[in-house]
C-alpha cells in the first residue's frame, strides 16, 4: 500500500509537471471535420441505441458474431453512405433507423439466436439506413475524409460499448440486465417511430 501510494504521488507530480498544455482544438478543417463527424452519431439517440444494440447482440451471440457484426455494420454503412452521397433516394430513412432500434433491441430482449448469416443480413440491412443518413448530411465545409473517419469511429466505439456491456451475459444476472437494456432500446425505437422523441 505504501509503495502504491508513493507511485501515485510520483505519477501525479509527473502529470502536473508539463509547462504548457494547449487544450483548444483547432477549429479549422482537421480536428473540426473529425470532431463534427465523431459527434454526428452521438447527437442522435436513435443512432446511439441502434449501435449499442448491435454490440449487445454480438456479445449475446458470442464468437464469431461478436466481432463479425461490428465489421459488417461499418462496411455496409459505408455503402449506404455512398448511396446518400450519390443522391440515390432511400424511402423512409428515419423510419428505418427507428426500426433498427426496435428490431435489434428486440433481438437482444428476446435472446434471439438466429444463424449467423441471418444476423449479419439483418444488421447489414439496417446499416444502409444509418449510412444513408450520414452520407446525405456530410457537410460540404468539413474535411470529408476526417468527417467520415469520425462518424465511422464513433459508430465502432458505440459497438464496443455494447459489446462491453454485453459481456455481462456470462452471469445469470447479467443476462437479465442485458435483455432489459435490449427491451429499453426497443422502447426508445418505438418512441422515435411514433414521434414521441
Amino acid at each position: 500500500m505504501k509503495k502504491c501510494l508513493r507511485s501515485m504521488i510520483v505519477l501525479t507530480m509527473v502529470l502536473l509537471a508539463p509547462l504548457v498544455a494547449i487544450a483548444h482544438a483547432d477549429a479549422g478543417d482537421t480536428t473540426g471535420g473529425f470532431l463534427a463527424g465523431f459527434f454526428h452519431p452521438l447527437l442522435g439517440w436513435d443512432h446511439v441505441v441502434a449501435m449499442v444494440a448491435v454490440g449487445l447482440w454480438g456479445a449475446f451471440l458470442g464468437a464469431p458474431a461478436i466481432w463479425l457484426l461490428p465489421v459488417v455494420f461499418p462496411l455496409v454503412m459505408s455503402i449506404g453512405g455512398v448511396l446518400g452521397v450519390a443522391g440515390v433516394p432511400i424511402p423512409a430513412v428515419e423510419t428505418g433507423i427507428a426500426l433498427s432500434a426496435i428490431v435489434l433491441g428486440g433481438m437482444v430482449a428476446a435472446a434471439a439466436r438466429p444463424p449467423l448469416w441471418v444476423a449479419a443480413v439483418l444488421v447489414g440491412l439496417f446499416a444502409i439506413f444509418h449510412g444513408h443518413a450520414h452520407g446525405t448530411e456530410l457537410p460540404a465545409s468539413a474535411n470529408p475524409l476526417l468527417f467520415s473517419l469520425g462518424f465511422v469511429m464513433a459508430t465502432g466505439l458505440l459497438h464496443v460499448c455494447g459489446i462491453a456491456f454485453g459481456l455481462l451475459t456470462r452471469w445469470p444476472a447479467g443476462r437479465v440486465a442485458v435483455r432489459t437494456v435490449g427491451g429499453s432500446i426497443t422502447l426508445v425505437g418505438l418512441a422515435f417511430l411514433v414521434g414521441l422523441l
Partner: protein
Amino acid sequence: MNAWHRRLVGFALASSACGAYAHSPVAGMNHFYSGMVHPVLVPAHVIALAVSGLWIGLGPGDDKTHITLLGAAAVGLILGIFVTLPAMEQFVLTLATVMAIAVALHWAGPSAVRLGVVACLGVLLGLDSTPDGLSGSQLWLSLAGTWLAIALIVAAMILLCQVAARPWQRIALRVIASWLAASALVVVALVSFKPAQTAAPNRSGAVMQR
C-alpha cells in the same frame, strides 16, 4: 540508488521539459522535416499507409511486399518531379479501400496480387507527395524526408501487427481496418459524385477546389 531515488530523478527529468522546437539546428535541413511531416498531414496518405502496414503485417510475413512498397514509393517520388497527374488522392483512397477490405476479411491474396497492389500504392503515394516549388538539394531533402516517413509509418504498423499476437488483438486490427475501409469508401464516392464539394490540398499545401 534505490527505487525512491530513481522516481525522484525521473520526476526531475520530466519537470525539466520546456518548449519542444521543431526547427532543425542544421541550416537547410528544414525541407527534410517538411517532407517527413507531409504524409502525416494528408489524411488519405495516413490511411493508405496504415492499411498497407496492416495488410503486410497480418499477411504471410514475406519481406518482398514491404520492400516493394518502399521501392515503389521511391520511384513515385522521383517520377513526381517530372510528371503531374490529377486526382492522385482519389486513386490512393481507392487502393486503400481495397486493401482495408482485404484486411477486414482476412484475405492475404496471391503473392503477385499483393506485390502489384502495394507497388501501385507506393507509386501513387510518391507521385502525390512530390512538393512543388522546390529544386536542387531542397527538393531531394524533402523527398528523402517523405520517403523516410513512409518507411517509418509502415514499419510501425507492421510492428504493431507483430506485437498484437493474441487472437482478439488481431481481430481488433481487422475491425479497425473495416473502419478505415468504410471511411475511405464514402470519401471516394463523394469525390466521384460531388467533386465540387471536395477541397484537397495541392502538393504545395494550398487548398484548391477539384
